[in-house]
C-alpha cells in the first residue's frame, strides 16, 4: 500500500522505526519458528531428493517423487486421507453448528452440561478414548455387536475394524467424536454473541427463522466457521494415532493414511528420503486445501 505514493523522508523514517519495533516483537516467536519449524522443513525438502536411510545418503533427484506416484499404497493412502477430510470436515462443522444452535438458548446449566459432554473426548486424551473404542468395536466381546445382537438387528457378529468396508468409517466416527468438542464450544459462544436487536428487528419484519439464520446469524459467525474449517482440516489430515492404535493401516490398506504411511516408511523401513518426499506432497495438499478455505470463507467475511 505504500507504493501508491512516494514516501517522504518522514514516512520512511516511520516505516523503518515500525519495522524495527515489529521485528523486535516478532523475535521470540521467530526464534522458535525458524529453529524448530523452518530449519527442519528445509532439511525435509532437501533430503526428499536423496536416497536417505540409516545407511545411505545419495542424491537421486526426483526419483522419490516418481516412485511415489507409482506406489499403489501411497495412492490408496492419499485417497483415504482425502476421504477422511472430505467427510470429517463438513460433518464436524455442520454437526457442531447444529448442536450449538440447539443448545445455546437453553438455560445456563443445561447448555454447559452439553458443552462439557461434547468436549469430554478431547480432554480425556486420544490414547485413552481409543482404547475404549477398540473394545467397543471388538467383534467377539465388544459393545456394538452385543447391543446389535441382543436387539436382533444383526444375526452374526460384525468385524468392525477387520472389514474393509467398515474399518475406515469406524476411524472416521472416532475422529468425529474427538473433533467436535472445540467447534461446539466456539459456536455456542459465537451464536451467543450475535446481536439480539438485529434478530428481533428481522422478526418484526416477518422474517422466518430460516431467513434469520442465513441473513443475520450466518454472516456474523463466519469468522468462527473459517477458523473451525481450518483447524478441523489440519486435524483430519493429521489423523495418525487412531490408525496406529486401532488398525495399523489395515485391513488391506483400507485405513492407510498418508500420515501413517510416512511414519511406516520412515520409522519401520528407515526410508527417510522417501518419507520426507511424501511429507512435502502432503504439505502442499494441505496448503492448497487451507488456501481454498481462506479464499472461499474469507471473501464473504470482508
Amino acid at each position, binding site marked *: 500500500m505504500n507504493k501508491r505514493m512516494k514516501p517522504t523522508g518522514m514516512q520512511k523514517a516511520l516505516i523503518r522505526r515500525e*519495522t524495527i*519495533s*515489529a521485528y523486535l*516483537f*516478532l523475535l521470540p*516467536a521467530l526464534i*522458535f*519458528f525458524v*529453529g*524448530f*519449524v*523452518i*530449519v*527442519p522443513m528445509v*532439511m*525435509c525438502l532437501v*533430503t526428499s531428493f536423496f536416497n536417505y536411510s540409516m545407511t545411505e545418503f545419495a542424491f537421486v533427484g526426483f526419483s522419490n517423487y516418481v516412485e511415489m506416484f507409482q506406489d499403489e499404497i501411497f495412492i490408496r493412502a492419499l485417497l483415504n486421507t482425502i476421504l477422511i477430510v472430505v467427510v470429517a470436515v463438513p460433518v464436524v462443522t455442520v454437526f457442531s453448528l447444529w448442536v450449538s444452535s*440447539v*443448545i445455546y*438458548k437453553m438455560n445456563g446449566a443445561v447448555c454447559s452440561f452439553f458443552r462439557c*459432554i*461434547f468436549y*469430554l*473426548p*478431547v*480432554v*480425556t*486424551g486420544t*490414547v*485413552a478414548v481409543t*482404547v*475404549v473404542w477398540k*473394545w467397543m468395536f471388538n467383534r*467377539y*466381546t465388544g459393545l456394538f455387536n452385543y447391543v446389535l445382537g441382543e436387539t436382533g438387528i444383526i444375526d452374526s457378529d460384525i468385524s468392525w475394524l477387520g472389514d474393509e468396508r467398515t474399518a475406515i468409517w469406524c476411524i472416521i466416527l472416532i475422529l468425529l*467424536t474427538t473433533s467436535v468438542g*472445540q467447534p461446539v*464450544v*466456539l459456536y455456542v*459462544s*459465537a451464536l*451467543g*454473541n450475535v446481536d439480539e436487536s438485529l434478530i428481533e428487528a428481522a422478526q418484526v419484519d416477518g422474517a422466518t427463522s430460516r431467513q434469520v439464520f442465513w441473513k443475520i446469524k450466518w454472516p456474523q459467525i463466519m*469468522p*468462527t466457521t473459517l*477458523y473451525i474449517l481450518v483447524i478441523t482440516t*489440519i486435524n483430519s489430515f*493429521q489423523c*495418525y*494415532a487412531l490408525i496406529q*492404535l486401532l488398525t495399523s493401516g489395515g485391513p488391506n490398506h483400507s485405513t492407510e493414511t498418508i*500420515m501413517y504411511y510416512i511414519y511406516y516408511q*520412515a520409522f519401520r523401513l528407515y526410508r527417510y528420503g522417501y518419507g*520426507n518426499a511424501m*511429507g512435502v506432497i502432503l*504439505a502442499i495438499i*494441505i*496448503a492448497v*486445501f487451507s488456501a481454498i478455505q481462506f479464499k472461499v470463507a474469507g471473501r464473504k*467475511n470482508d
Partner: protein
Amino acid sequence: MKKIKITPYKVVAVAILAILAFLFLFPLYWILTGSVKTAADINDAVPQWFPMSPTLDNYERLFDNPALLWLFNSVAMAVVSMILTCVTASMAGYALAKKRFIGRTLLFSIFICAMALPKQVILIPLLREMAFLHLHDTMWAVILPTVGWPFGVFLMKQFSENIPGELLEAARIDGAGEARTFTEIALPIIKPGIGALAIFTFINCWNDYFLQLIMLNSRTKLTISLGIAKLQAEMSTDFGLIMAGAALAAVPIITIFLLFQKYFTRGITMGAVKG
C-alpha cells in the same frame, strides 16, 4: 430471558442430543468403571455395566510404574509449552496485526503455510536437530517444536485485529514506549484470546502422542499418555491397568476444564467471532 416455544422439532432435537451425549460420555464412564473392575469382569462377553466387585488392584499395579511422575511430566511439558507459546505468540500476533512493516505480508503467508504442515512430516530432521543440540530425551525436545508451531501466532494475530488503532495512536502521542503500549493497551484487550490459546496449547501438547513417543525414551521422562500406550504389551492387553492409567490422566484435566469452563469458553468466543 426470551420465551422458549416448545416445538416438535425441539423435542426431537433434544432426544437426539441425549443419545449423542450418551455416546460421548460412555468412553469416560467405561474408563472410570473399568479401572476398578477385575480382569474377569472386564473380559466378560456380556458387558458388565457396573463394577460388581470393585477392586483397587489396577491402581496398585499402575503405581508400580512411575505413574505420578508421568503425570507430572505431562503437566510440566504442557504448562511450559503453554506459557512460552502465549508469550511469543501474543507479541508476534500483535506486531503482525498492528504494525505496518517491511515483509509483513510475506511473513504472514509463511506462517499460514507452515501451519498447514503436519508436525510429523518434519520428525526425522527434528530428531537430527535435537541430537545436535543434545536435547533428545528431554522435555525440551517436545516443548520447542510445540512452541515453534505458528498456529498460536495466527490465532493471536486474529485477536489482535480487535485492538483499536486509535488507542495505540493515543498512547504513542502520550509518549508511551512500544513495550508500555503493548503491555498496557494491547494486552488487556487480547487477554481473552490468550486464555483461549493457553487452553488449546495445553490440550494439544497433552494429546500430542507421536511427538512424545519419538522424543522421549527414559521411563522417568515419559508422559502419561505415552505411559498408557506403553502399558499395552504385545501378547496381552491388560485393560484394567490401561483404564486406571487413562483415569489418572483424564480426571485432573477434566476437573480443570470443569472449574475453568466459563473462563475458557468466554475467552474462546471473543476473539474468534471478530476474525
